[in-house]
């Protein structure tokens, strides 16, 4: 057994790996289903390559903490405790989906698990996170809100309003900027005033930290610090998680704006494959144990898809249900 500089228990490290594999395999199947024409609507925004961000941050939260997610949100949703079957059912537009087929890929969330919603509008979740923070402050419940958004959201006005207000009111929020380098086709470095997005925290007098988003333990470590600060009343932190989406913005994006060499370079840093290798090298698990874990997740994926496929469509007569709360 080689030495490890990790301070996490083997159990925790395997749990992190398991959660990343769940996300990776969920998304690979989603991609396959979409290419096969099984899923309708806008092509799903896959988070393959970004697993360490969702898992690293959310593993640093308590179950009753809140998150807000994005259009690239399947990973956040799974990491916050969602079931694959109800997620696939939502992708299929089935009545058994988390949103009963009313939301689809960009809106999957299990609110009961503290996921206050994914969002189809870039940057729109940030102002909503403030409100969750105000609720916590008013109740004095010591919860924390982790709000995910992409690099492109940092150029939206809502980002700046929310950053300012979170600090002015010392709200218990962790801002998680998943910098995957591109807003659809536009490189963030061409349209952002700062090279390092965490530098934007300086303008709001809050800590700004950039972390390697391909290393789940590194993400978790900085997230734990930010969560602990927020929980203790120390206010918000801006985390910039440097990551990469291996696929396009959506399935129809063939990535003419970047080279295959660039992509191959990032594949060498794959958060899932490298963590697997590390767990083996450090003797945390055996090849057989990890293979068994992966098989379990394959079975979870298959069962989830089967559940979705065998589920009923929503009743067309109920298309206006849930517009209002009645009574």
């Amino acid at each position, binding site marked *: 057994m080689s030495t490890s500089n990790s301070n996490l228990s083997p159990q925790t490290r395997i749990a992190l790996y398991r959660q990343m594999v769940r996300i990776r395999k969920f998304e690979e199947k989603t991609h396959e289903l979409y290419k096969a024409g099984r899923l309708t609507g806008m092509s799903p925004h896959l988070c393959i390559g970004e697993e360490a961000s969702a898992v690293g941050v959310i593993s640093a939260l308590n179950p009753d903490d*809140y998150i807000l997610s994005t259009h690239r949100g399947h990973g956040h949703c799974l990491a916050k405790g969602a079931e694959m079957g109800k997620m696939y059912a939502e992708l299929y537009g089935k009545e058994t*989906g*988390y*949103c*009963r*087929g*009313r*939301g689809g890929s960009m*809106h999957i*969330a*299990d*609110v*009961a698990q503290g996921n*206050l*919603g994914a*969002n*189809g*509008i870039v940057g*729109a979740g*940030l*102002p*909503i*996170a*403030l*409100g*969750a*923070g*105000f*609720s*916590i*402050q*008013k*109740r004095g419940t010591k919860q924390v809100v982790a709000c995910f958004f992409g690099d492109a959201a940092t150029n939206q*006005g*809502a980002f700046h*309003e*929310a950053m*300012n*207000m979170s600090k*002015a009111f010392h709200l218990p929020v962790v801002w998680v900027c998943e910098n995957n380098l591109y807003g659809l086709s536009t490189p963030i470095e061409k349209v952002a005033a700062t090279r390092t997005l965490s530098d934007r925290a300086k303008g709001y007098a809050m800590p700004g930290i950039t972390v390697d988003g391909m290393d789940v333990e590194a993400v978790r470590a900085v997230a734990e610090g930010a969560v602990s600060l927020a929980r203790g009343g120390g206010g918000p932190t801006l985390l910039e998680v440097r990551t990469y989406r291996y696929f396009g913005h959506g399935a129809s994006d063939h990535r003419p704006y970047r080279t295959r060499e660039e992509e191959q370079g990032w594949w060498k840093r794959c958060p899932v494959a490298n963590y697997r290798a590390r767990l083996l090298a450090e003797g945390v698990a055996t090849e057989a144990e990890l293979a068994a874990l992966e098989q379990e997740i394959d079975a979870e994926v298959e069962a989830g898809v089967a559940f979705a496929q065998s589920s009923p469509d929503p009743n067309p007569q109920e298309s*206006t*249900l*849930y*517009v*209002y*709360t009645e009574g």
Partner: protein
Amino acid sequence: MAEKTFREAIIEAMAEEMRRDERVVLIGEDVGRFGGAMGASKGLFQEFGPSRVIDTPISEAAIIGSALGMALTGQRPIAELMFIDFAGVCMDQILNQVAKVRYMLGGQVKVPLVIRTQGGAGKGYAAQHSQSLEAWFTHVPGLKVVMPATPRDAKGLLKSAIRDDNPVMFIEHKLLYNNKGEVPEDPEFLIPLGKAEVKREGSDLTIVSHSRQVLNCLEAAEELSNQGIEAEVIDLRTLRPMDFDAVRASVEKTGRLVTVEEGYPQCGIGAEVVARIAEQCFESLDMPPIRIASKDTPIPFARVLEQETLPSPRRIVETVLAARRWVRRPQDQRLAV
């Protein structure tokens, strides 16, 4: 019952609901120590403190987003948007977030949230602080839209809006705040959303209006009465859901429909009322419906120009009298004065 101003009725409604339910929170610009730009939250900060009356920066998207986040996590927020014109800087939060989150999540959440805002012209505030944008919001499923005309209605409707589990745009006309009227003091006095009220009964003509223009319609109705025409004035009070039944019942009685609003004519509230009546009781109409609205222009600054763009009692009277040529049945004496 006590005589109170519209402003006092608004404050009283919020204070009573905040005493009744500690989840009710007010958030907005200058709503705290200052008491609101229109003075419509005076005293609340002093009574309820900074965790329930939150003074924000000038960040409208953050205000509406904060209210939504609070609503999703167990509070019952009232967000004050100082001028309805500022909806332009937080429309995403209203349109794409507040109005849709319950539906998009398949009913997983309730959104008990009131956006109190203030609109309308008549004070020389020019084009960016005088608009009547209520028709925008009535277009959006997921929102309710309320626009009271009297202190009594303001109190009863605002209390109902705060107790409602849905997002409500509660729009106050800036010229109404100092108006006085009888206001019930019973803390359980509520006016249900979605119910119009006949503010004046009449047999010859139905005038449908909302907010401050209701007062102009009542004044016009007195003048018409002097000329032998008895107008029924219906105050919609809630614009979404709209009480078409009340309008239809009146039109079936009078056979004539006039709509009056301070918003713009194209795709306005009057357009909707007329369309519904045409669909539902066309055969009851004895003359083509008439829509009276503001002129199709940004609101000008100069008083003479501003007054010219807005509906007035005189314009309502003149428009109705000019329409007498449309009386088709010679035996119908109702308008033949």
